[in-house]
């Protein structure tokens, strides 16, 4: 990791969001600052046997029809989310479009899984007679594992490196980290990066199967996602896309771009003791590596945006890891109480929110944290908006598969 630290610094110059609060970063931040819940009852979930949860945090009012059909034909819903979020991010970055095709501008955008909605629609028809005669060319382009990344690249004409990481709930965070490393090492100058997710009942069922999806609050959706709370009962699945534009800091400064923040440290590692169980030790090791990559001490971090998805084991493990590394003074919050768990999108969306908190000088608390679980006690998990200047923040995302991921974010200038 040290090889990157001695090289180029990496700026954030653009951010774009499609979230359960709607289109745009402004809608995302308004929902969070106002303390609203984006979680709703999804009646159609009643139709599924063996599924206890009835809740989801869906993106409202986005159909992608503004994208020309010739471009949209290869896009699933999660690719549409990614393209629209990237459009907002690139507009804010205001990079010269003449450079998009230079080969120095790349894309790192990932998803948890290829479009389940597209696959379901295809196979529902296909299994009638096992015929491929009704298959259309768009099927592959919508379901290939790098579909979202490729669609972002093609829509904007970004002709550099293309990478589509897949690490479930850590996908977005990994995408930002890998993009940061490509710029820091000098192989790319600009990266459009983040994660995107479309909701499918299978996602909710997967968490439900492992007793990690909320269902006790099916009649009170706004109370359902309760990170660190004693009465939490699991994840509420959501969807969206969080996309950032990263670029070489020096180039950004020379062209007079607004530096929203810097990505100054990154670590990701795999804990192989269990493919499903979180590991507090691995989380702590990952955060320590990210701090080392940034060349900062734990005590210099002013805010931590936790992964905390409101599962019993995950929140407990993260709280213990935070206490072990940072002690009890650094403010910590999770945004899953507002947004639910947007899975692959969460790394991008929550990093955007963290950067906005740094820009605004106020920290957004954890929603629905009424009484902290004794097992999560120790870190300073705050419950009301706090005004403070934040110069360094840490962002965590952890995933099934044993993947741990942390970013260090430095305030912009």
């Amino acid at each position, binding site marked *: 990791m040290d090889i990157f630290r001695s090289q180029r610094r990496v700026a954030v110059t653009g951010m774009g969001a499609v979230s359960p609060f709607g289109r745009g970063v402004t809608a995302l931040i308004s929902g969070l600052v106002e303390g609203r819940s984006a979680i709703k009852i999804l009646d159609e979930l009643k139709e599924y046997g063996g599924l206890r949860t009835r809740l989801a945090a869906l993106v409202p009012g986005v159909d992608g029809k503004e994208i020309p*059909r010739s471009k949209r*034909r290869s896009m699933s819903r999660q690719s549409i989310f990614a393209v629209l979020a990237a459009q907002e991010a690139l507009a804010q970055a205001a990079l010269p479009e003449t450079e998009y095709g230079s080969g120095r501008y790349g894309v790192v955008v990932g998803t948890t899984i290829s479009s389940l909605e597209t696959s379901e629609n295809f196979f529902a028809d296909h299994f009638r007679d096992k015929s491929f*005669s009704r*298959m259309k060319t*768009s099927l592959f382009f919508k379901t290939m594992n790098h579909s979202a990344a490729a669609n972002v690249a093609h829509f904007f004409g970004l002709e550099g490196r293309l990478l589509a990481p897949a690490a479930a709930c850590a996908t977005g965070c990994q995408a930002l980290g890998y993009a940061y490393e490509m710029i820091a090492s000098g192989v790319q100058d600009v990266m459009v990066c983040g994660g995107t997710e479309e909701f499918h009942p299978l996602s909710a069922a997967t968490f439900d199967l492992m007793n990690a999806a909320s269902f006790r609050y099916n009649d009170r959706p706004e109370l359902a996602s309760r990170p660190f709370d004693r009465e939490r009962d699991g994840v509420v699945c959501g969807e969206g896309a969080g996309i950032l534009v990263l670029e070489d800091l020096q180039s950004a400064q020379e062209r007079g771009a607004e530096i929203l923040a810097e990505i100054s440290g990154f670590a990701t590692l795999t804990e192989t003791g269990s493919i499903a169980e979180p590991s507090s030790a691995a989380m702590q090791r990952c955060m320590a590596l990210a701090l080392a990559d940034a060349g900062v001490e734990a005590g210099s971090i002013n805010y931590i945006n936790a992964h905390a998805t409101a599962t019993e084991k995950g929140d407990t493990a993260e709280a213990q890891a935070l206490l072990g590394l940072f002690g009890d003074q650094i403010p910590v919050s999770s945004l899953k109480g507002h947004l639910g768990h947007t899975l692959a999108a969460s790394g991008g969306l929550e990093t955007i929110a963290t950067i906005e908190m740094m820009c605004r000088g106020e920290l957004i608390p954890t929603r629905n944290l009424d009484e902290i679980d004794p097992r999560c006690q120790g870190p300073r998990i705050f419950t009301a908006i706090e005004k403070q200047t934040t110069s360094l923040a840490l962002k965590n995302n952890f995933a099934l598969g044993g993947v741990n991921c942390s970013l260090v974010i430095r305030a912009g200038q």
Partner: protein
Amino acid sequence: MTDTEIISLVNDSLVEEFELEISTMVSEAEIFADLGLDSLDIVDMVVVLEGALGIKIRDDAGLREIHTLGDIHQFVLQKKRETEAAS
């Protein structure tokens, strides 16, 4: 089905699949230049027409001679007649 009904069905199917303006659906419209379709769309067009009309045209060499919407109409009408004659 009459020829007029077949042509109408072809046009409606293509308008829906490729989000075309009905006003562009004239016989002399060039498939690539005027309707804005490309080679991937042509593959899907075959699937759409086979589904709408209950014919098999995928392996028909006559597809390569299609350049305009009017060519599609004539091709499909011919295939319908052949299919009906065979049955």
